[in-house]
């Protein structure tokens, strides 16, 4: 009896999990099969049918040629590299100060980062817009960069967790040898934060790559398109040509999906460490 009951529970578990996976994979499946269809084939076949050939890359070439997707990848890459370099630098600096020293204003600094998260960033753009314009950054790659480089509270919490696990003995023995505090940051703390940095680099790469609103608002110039704004323009011009749009969607989804399958361990770590604490 008990044995049968357990079997039934397992059946329910697997059945619901498979429904979940089906729901997750159904939309990407539809996009994949239609991205390989020519317009004629697309119009004559069912939208769930497999394409005649998975070697028909015409739609993809069209996306690159007509949509200028390559420059979009280029722009977003430049933004990601500059942003992350500065962001990691600032993030580790703030975490080093908050994690290693005690001073009067420490709770205020941490509180300032914490409170910042409840301010809805989309609506404050009404005021941020003027600041970016006055700085002369409107319609330059500088606009998203300055808006992304600031450290956020999740990042600081993640770094602080790691710093707490670096024994203070290391700092002390370096001090005995006469190392400056800057040297301790540079050659002890910063290198030992590498696992956290790796997690943050991956998460932030994905979130910058996926962001739509800031590039949309601050870089309307044609040549400054990033993947999201280029996809929006491409959809606007080619609306109704779903086989082309499917190819564009697929090309834009691919980089983060590949990154995810190779580096999922870091991604899960980053997502959970901030939230569970």
């Amino acid at each position, binding site marked *: 009896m008990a044995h049968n009951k357990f079997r039934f529970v397992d059946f329910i578990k697997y059945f619901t999990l498979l429904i979940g996976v089906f729901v997750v994979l159904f939309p990407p499946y539809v996009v994949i099969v239609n991205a390989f269809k020519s317009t004629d084939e697309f119009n004559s076949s069912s939208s769930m049918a497999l394409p005649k050939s998975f070697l028909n890359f015409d739609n993809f070439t069209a996306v690159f040629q007509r949509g200028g997707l390559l420059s979009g990848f280029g722009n977003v890459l430049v933004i990601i590299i500059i942003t992350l370099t500065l962001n990691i630098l600032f993030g580790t600096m703030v975490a080093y100060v908050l994690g290693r020293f005690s001073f009067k204003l420490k709770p205020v600094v941490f509180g300032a980062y914490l409170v910042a998260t409840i301010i809805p960033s989309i*609506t404050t753009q009404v005021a941020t817009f003027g600041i970016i314009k006055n700085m002369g950054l409107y319609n330059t790659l500088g606009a998203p960069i300055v808006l992304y480089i600031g450290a956020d509270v999740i990042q600081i919490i993640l770094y602080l967790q790691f710093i707490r696990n670096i024994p203070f003995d290391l700092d002390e023995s370096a001090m005995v040898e006469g190392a400056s505090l800057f040297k301790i940051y540079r050659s002890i703390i910063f290198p030992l934060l590498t696992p956290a940095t790796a997690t943050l680099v991956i998460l932030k790469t994905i979130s910058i790559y996926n962001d739509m609103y800031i590039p949309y608002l601050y870089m309307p110039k044609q040549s400054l398109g990033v993947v999201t704004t280029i996809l929006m323009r491409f959809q606007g011009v080619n609306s109704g040509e779903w086989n082309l749009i499917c190819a564009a969607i697929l090309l834009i989804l691919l980089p983060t999906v590949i990154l995810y399958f190779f580096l999922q361990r870091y991604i899960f770590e980053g997502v959970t460490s901030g939230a569970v604490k």
Partner: protein
Amino acid sequence: MFGTLSYNKQKTIIIVSFLLIPLLLLATFTYYPAIKLVYYSFTNWDGYSPEKPWVGLDNYREVFSNPDIFKVFTHNFAYFVMGIVQNIVAIYFAVVLSSRLRGKNAFRIMLFLPYIMNGVAVAFMFGYVFDTTNGSLNLFLDNIGLHHLAQTSWLGTEGLVNYSLASTGFWRFMGYNMVIYIASLQAIPKDIYEAAKIDGAGSFQTLWRITLPNMKPVIQLNLFLTVTGALEVFDLPFVLTKGGPAGASQTYVQKVVETAFAFNNYGLASAMSIILLFFVVIVLLVQQLVLNRGGDK
């Protein structure tokens, strides 16, 4: 570099120099705009002219007296409902994936997959799935015999469009909630379960008396994110329906953005933002209150 200075002096230099730029960024792009926003909300600034005429509380009066503005919150309601369902499903899958099961890592990877996908690409993907005549959802429904549902205009029907959009949000973020719930389940000490087993607790009792109470802080965090997320929905309707049909899927934030950038009414838009911020703070306070009353944390 400053090896000759005393450590106390070095400490001061490091604290000031290391915090200077990060705090300047935080002040310039988070707090200064927030303060500006408060100021704009008392003016009827058009966004470009040098003078910003002071109008006192007029903008706030307008927000509360113009039914068109608050009405859009009923559209946000759909996201709240779907968000609650999403959390329930996420807890269910988290519990399932924390039990003994073959291939649970593979299932976790698949269910989390949508979260890392590009939001605009996902929006258009669902634009295609929901398409009335060519869309694969209607084709699928037709194939499994639900012919009467297969003619539905998922994004073109007033009462339905917000739920269609919210279910896209569900698709994207359920895995995220699930992964957080899984982590919180792993943090529950195993010996509690063993003790419960020895005391003869059934699996449903264990779930109700041990698992869920231990997940409470994380559930509350996720609920906070769900509620504020529902209040602040923007990108999905903005990309996919542009607020249509006839404004039926316009959300509050979308209305703020439109008021500012399309109608150049920065004063009113600022007042609307401040009211949104106010709601977020209220949600946070109410939750803190409930959390503290709950006792155990």
